[in-house]
């Protein structure tokens, strides 16, 4: 009896000790992770501040400088530092809603600098307007910097207190720090909302974001008419049921406002429906996806390409030329570009997906075509292909040459396209057909699945 009595408490106390040791380990581990994370955020914060400072300094130097060469160097520094700041800001634990405009500001500062560098390289001077814009940007940056400095002081204060307060208070402090970060950034965010749009020509500019399609046509199309178009596109006989997607009140604000449909072919299960969009203006099929499975590869790529070309002709797209292709999952994807005379117009692009079992078209995307296609006045080239060849590296091994329109900012430019090889890798080089300037270089990546350009 006596012997048994001490066993239970011993066991229980041992269990307690083990539990305590385990709990203490967990506690320590949690603290370590917390510290590591706090350190990481501190670093991001200091880095962001430094980068924004550098942007501000380089911008003011660029305003003072009167030499083009110096300006190019300074602006490329601005671009670099602004992208760094944007990247680090986006990693901080703040909701997107609170930093969206600040991020946009930083991205556009970088993008704007890049477009100014291009202007400089083309031999153009800064206009007064551009100088003014730079001045405004510099003002915004310095405001942002001030907010960050104020924040920095508060954070330091918080750290100082943290070492003396108890754990519970420290938690409160951390919470406060977090909120402070949020509110401070938000106050700058509000100021940002008031600054005007930047007008320039780059991939992140507002002009590019708000671009309106030019290739839609004029006719307004009702939902019922659009349904008929969708049915016709798939094939009247194949369709069993057609339903439309629920729309929000701002559907007209998207790039190509469209009626979106769920097209159920006959003898198919519900989750295998075909989806497609028909533009409200002009009644064009913008995109179509048929998620059906393809199990066999019966067709060669050449046959699939012919099917795709036939389909395009049936749908009334003339003068389309296949350019790149990819093959995966029993599907071939083709990029068709518009051809005007002997000029390939790359912006007018249509993508087609061909099932390799029976050649059916199971994917269609004409959004790029609809955004860009219009009647163009393509200029006559001012230099000969031979002259353009002189602008290409002498040991570049050329396979083919042709004329092409390529997008550059919001403009399109006529170029000679040289496809070829350099030291075993494939490239495409574009030389401006009007002034012989090298406009762009694309690298071609050939994989077992097809060709890609970078």
């Amino acid at each position, binding site marked *: 009896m006596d012997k048994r009595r001490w066993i239970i408490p011993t066991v229980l106390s041992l269990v307690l000790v083990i539990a305590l040791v385990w709990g203490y380990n967990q506690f320590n581990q949690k603290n370590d992770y917390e510290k590591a994370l706090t350190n990481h955020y501190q670093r991001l914060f200091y880095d962001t501040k430094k980068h924004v400072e550098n942007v501000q300094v380089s911008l003011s130097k660029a305003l003072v400088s009167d030499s083009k060469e110096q300006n190019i160097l300074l602006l490329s520094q601005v671009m670099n530092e602004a992208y760094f700041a944007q990247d680090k800001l986006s990693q901080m634990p703040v909701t997107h809603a609170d930093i969206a405009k600040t*991020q946009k500001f930083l991205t556009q500062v970088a993008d704007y600098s890049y477009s100014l560098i291009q202007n400089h390289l083309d031999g153009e001077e800064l206009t007064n307007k551009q100088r003014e814009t730079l001045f405004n940007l510099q003002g915004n940056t310095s405001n942002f910097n001030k907010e960050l400095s104020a924040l920095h002081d508060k954070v330091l204060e918080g750290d100082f207190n943290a070492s003396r307060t108890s754990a519970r208070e420290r938690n409160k402090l951390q919470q406060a720090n977090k909120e402070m970060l949020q509110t401070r950034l938000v106050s700058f965010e509000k100021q940002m909302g008031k600054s005007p749009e930047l007008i320039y020509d780059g*991939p992140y500019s507002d002009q590019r974001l708000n671009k309106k399609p030019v290739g839609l046509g004029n006719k307004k199309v009702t939902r019922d008419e659009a349904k008929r178009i969708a049915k016709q596109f798939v094939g009247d006989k194949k369709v069993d049921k057609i339903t439309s997607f*629920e729309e*929000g009140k701002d*559907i007209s604000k998207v790039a190509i406002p469209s009626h979106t449909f769920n097209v159920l072919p006959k003898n198919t299960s519900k989750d295998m429906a075909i989806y497609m969009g028909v533009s409200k203006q002009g009644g064009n099929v913008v*995109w179509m996806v048929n998620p059906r499975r393809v199990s066999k590869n019966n067709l060669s790529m050449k046959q699939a390409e012919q099917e795709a070309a036939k389909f395009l002709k049936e749908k009334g797209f003339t003068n389309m030329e296949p350019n790149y292709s990819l093959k995966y*999952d029993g599907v071939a994807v083709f990029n068709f570009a518009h051809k005007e005379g002997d000029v390939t117009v790359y912006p007018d692009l249509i993508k087609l997906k061909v099932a390799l079992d029976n050649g059916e078209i199971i994917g269609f995307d004409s959004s790029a075509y609809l955004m860009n296609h219009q009647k163009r006045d393509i200029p006559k080239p001012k230099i000969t292909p031979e002259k353009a060849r002189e602008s290409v590296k002498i040991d570049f091994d050329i396979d083919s040459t042709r004329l092409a329109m390529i997008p550059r900012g919001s403009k399109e430019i006529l170029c000679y396209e040289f496809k070829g090889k350099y*030291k075993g890798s494939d490239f495409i080089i574009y030389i401006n057909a009007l002034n012989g300037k090298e406009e762009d270089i694309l690298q*071609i990546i050939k994989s077992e699945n097809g060709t890609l350009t970078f």
Partner: protein
Amino acid sequence: MKKRLLNKRFLAIFLSAISFFSIITFYEFKKPVESSSKYEYYQGSKVLYWGTTGQDVKDVQWKLRNWKYYNGKVDGIYGADTYRAVRRFQSKNGLKVDGVVGLSTARAMGLNFATASRGAAPATSTAGINRKDDVYLLARAIHGEARGEPYVGKVAVGAVILNRVRHPSFPNTVAGVIYQPLAFTAVADGQINLAPGKDSIKAARDSLNGWDPTYGCIYYWNPATATSKWIWSRKVTLKIGKHWFGI
């Protein structure tokens, strides 16, 4: 006699308690090792999954066929049969059963294509550049965020992520957008680390190839679970599956 039995019982309880806690304590130390191998698995340049094609798949099919896990054609296409065979192989060999041939499964098969293909790649300037990593990362994000959605809903989520990459208010890389703090719940709760289904991989490819059912939207939310009031101040455009899309 009885006392002794009881004593034995207590001893048994005591020992099991100790072993229980020691297992829990040691489990922690094992963890980092596990996650690092997981990391390696995602980092490995070659990961074969449903839809992959090529010589590496043929190698896998040969091996599985010789060991009688697979009885289909050796055609180099990772389809349903290959998927099932890989799963059978994985469960027999004590590997994680996910139907994906990563580093550990390949090792178990005695294949070494992950490092071999890296080393044997021709020394051109395009070596190592491909879109496979983007496809797989995007597929994981789609799988975590829109598993239960219709196919078009999956493509739409992929399209939103890619539209964000092109938008000035967001990071400029696919990984940057996906891992932005507080952006996606599937990233915060780890669902992004689930192995993506074949529909998600297909949807990721479609969105990377330019298909965009949202016409350029950069937000989406589920009205049933969205907690942020701010999201409702966005311009609401289209409902696909359970999600509302907006700009």
